[in-house]
């Protein structure tokens, strides 16, 4: 036992344990619990039936009381484990309960009614995933529509962002023209303008061009990101100008230079911007909340908020739809997280 402990606690370089090592591991383990725990709890809860959700104390897995169809009774009866005085356990179905006495029957032999004190029985439970939580809102409560709207906004906004930002970045990195530094200054100056500062006038602009209650009203204000232009331009500056000059000698048009030479070489930066854009647009909330006031155009985030804001919150649906909303972001986290962390560490992009 001691040798096992010594092996487990052995450290590199033969040094002993310092109090900072203990703090380190407490922090890391605590970190896992704190960071993933709430999300795991959400996913676990999302499979519980409304009855299981309102249970206190809550269980980790979604449990329901087993029910059985007994001949002679219309409704399925709940099953209980009853421990008799002789210590034997029997599985019985409850017919009705009067005070502390329950009238029960044996499902195999339903003719005889047994009176049982409720203190000696406990419900027979099984794990049951309430998939209905997912199916119903998607089918009946328009969540499929919200999902489609969210996907549309995310994909279109990201595509347009990539195209317009890379074109602007190309002009700002490979052309010498009057006013270039003025445009750059403008972009840097507005790098930090948050949407929350221009809500009212932007809303009037959107209404004036007829994009209120339209998904394009959500997409367009977000696509001309100064952050994206800035990041792509910095990257394109590292591409040698000789490449562009050589292509011009070969009679390539400027457009061809852009999409056959510059764009492929900018792929790494474009990929990072695409990942960021997908996460940003998928998660957008305040602006869609203002522009979209009709059910048909809600995105997932807005739809979730509306359903969660109702007087009588239907948690079993809300939790399931929250999980659905989380899925793309979790996929990004699992597969593409390193590009994001590298992007943030390198540029301070948010």
């Amino acid at each position, binding site marked *: 036992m001691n040798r096992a402990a010594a092996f487990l606690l052995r450290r590199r370089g033969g040094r002993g344990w310092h109090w900072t090592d203990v703090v380190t591991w407490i922090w890391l383990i605590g*970190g896992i619990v704190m*960071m993933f725990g709430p*999300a795991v709890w959400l996913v676990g809860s999302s499979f519980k039936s409304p009855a299981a959700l309102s249970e206190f104390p809550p269980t980790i897995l979604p449990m329901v009381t087993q029910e059985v169809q007994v001949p002679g009774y219309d409704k399925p009866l709940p099953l209980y484990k009853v421990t008799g005085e002789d210590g034997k356990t029997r599985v019985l179905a409850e017919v009705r309960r009067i005070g502390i006495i329950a009238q029960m029957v044996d499902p195999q032999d339903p003719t005889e009614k047994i009176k049982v004190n409720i203190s000696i029985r406990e419900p027979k439970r099984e794990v049951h995933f309430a998939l209905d939580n997912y199916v119903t809102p998607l089918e009946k409560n328009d969540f499929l529509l919200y999902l489609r709207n969210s996907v549309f906004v995310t994909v279109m906004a990201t595509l347009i962002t990539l195209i317009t930002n890379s074109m602007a970045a190309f002009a700002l990195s490979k052309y010498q023209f009057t006013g270039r530094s003025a*445009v750059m200054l403008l972009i840097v100056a507005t790098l930090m303008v948050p949407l929350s500062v221009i809500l009212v006038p932007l*809303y009037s602009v959107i209404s004036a061009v007829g994009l209120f209650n339209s998904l394009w009203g959500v997409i367009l204000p977000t696509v001309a990101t100064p952050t994206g232009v800035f990041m792509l331009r910095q990257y394109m500056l590292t591409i040698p100008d000789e490449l562009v000059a050589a292509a011009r000698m070969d009679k390539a048009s400027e457009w061809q230079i852009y999409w056959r030479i510059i764009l492929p070489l900018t792929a790494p930066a474009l990929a990072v911007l695409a990942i960021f854009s997908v996460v940003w647009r998928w998660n957008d909330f305040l602006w869609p909340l*203002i522009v979209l006031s009709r059910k048909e155009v809600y995105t997932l985030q807005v739809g979730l908020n509306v359903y969660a804001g109702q007087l009588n919150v239907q948690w079993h649906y809300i939790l399931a739809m929250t999980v659905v909303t989380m899925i793309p972001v979790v996929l990004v986290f699992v597969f593409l997280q390193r590009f994001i962390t590298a992007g943030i560490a390198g540029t301070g992009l948010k």
Partner: protein
Amino acid sequence: MSGNKAPSGLSQTAGALLLAPVRLAAMAVDPLLRGWQKLTGFNGMAAFFLVPNMAIFGIFVLLPLVINFIYSLTGGTALFLPDRSYVGFEQYGRLAACGNYLDPNSCTEDQFWKALYNTAIFVVLQVALMTVVALITALVLNREIRGRSFWRAVFFFPVLLSPVVVGLIWRWILQRQGLLNFMLYEVGIDPTEWLTDRFWAFTAAIGVSIWAHLGFYALILLAGLQAIPRDLYEAAEMDGTRPMRMFWRITLPLLGPNLLVVIVLALIRAVQIFDEVYVLTGGGPGTSTLYLTQYIYEIGFASLLRNPGLASAASIIMGAILVVLTLMQLAIARRNERRSGKS
């Protein structure tokens, strides 16, 4: 940034599929653009490349930015500028009308002042606490631990979640019959109304927003820690310096610039706090978690007594706060650049 490789495999295929129609379109427009190039020359092409982005940017960012000032000088409930009447600085006057500035209830726009005070308290507490927690996390991640990138990812996970998801996850945990109350019950503590008690709701707002953003700042600090030369520590160890002293004398001074960046970035974001708290508490109970952005949103869009001019004036005040913070950030960034340029 330049060190990144393009995402491989899955994402590349997905990207290629998405971009296929774009490629076709690009080929199709080439003859047209050649014509345009002949007509206007290189400068015309520069304009062509700039126009889509700058047009969208001009209409949806610059224009609103400019007319925001005009909005704040008008009154009435009409939405479009031509229908609105000029009232001068009346809206600002209304926001500033207070009997006693320390008591929001004595102000004409008591909600604005409550939101302002709440935001101020929130910003100070949230940024201070988060910086400390992010610093500890970065220090822990900077130690020689196995699987560092995994642990780094652990703390980064909530950063990617949408504010609505964050708000709902925690609303579910903090509600009366939620997980937290159950865990407290297990150790013999009475359940608490986390979201409907003024004090606890405010605390929850701070805690949840730290939970959601901590990983982002820890990442920046970790990058700063890794840039500190190892030989400094080796030399200090040779001199028999104790770890705590190393932290105060080497780590903290050298991390200073990064720490400042983190604090200012966190300040800028904390001032705009809205979505996760809005979903978590809806600004309540009462006005205890009402912050500036929610005030602007409600006065501009949600409440029955809509007043776009007032919302504009309030958003300009918030904008001014953000401009000051941004200028601070730029000054710090410039100073850092000069310093690193010298060494």
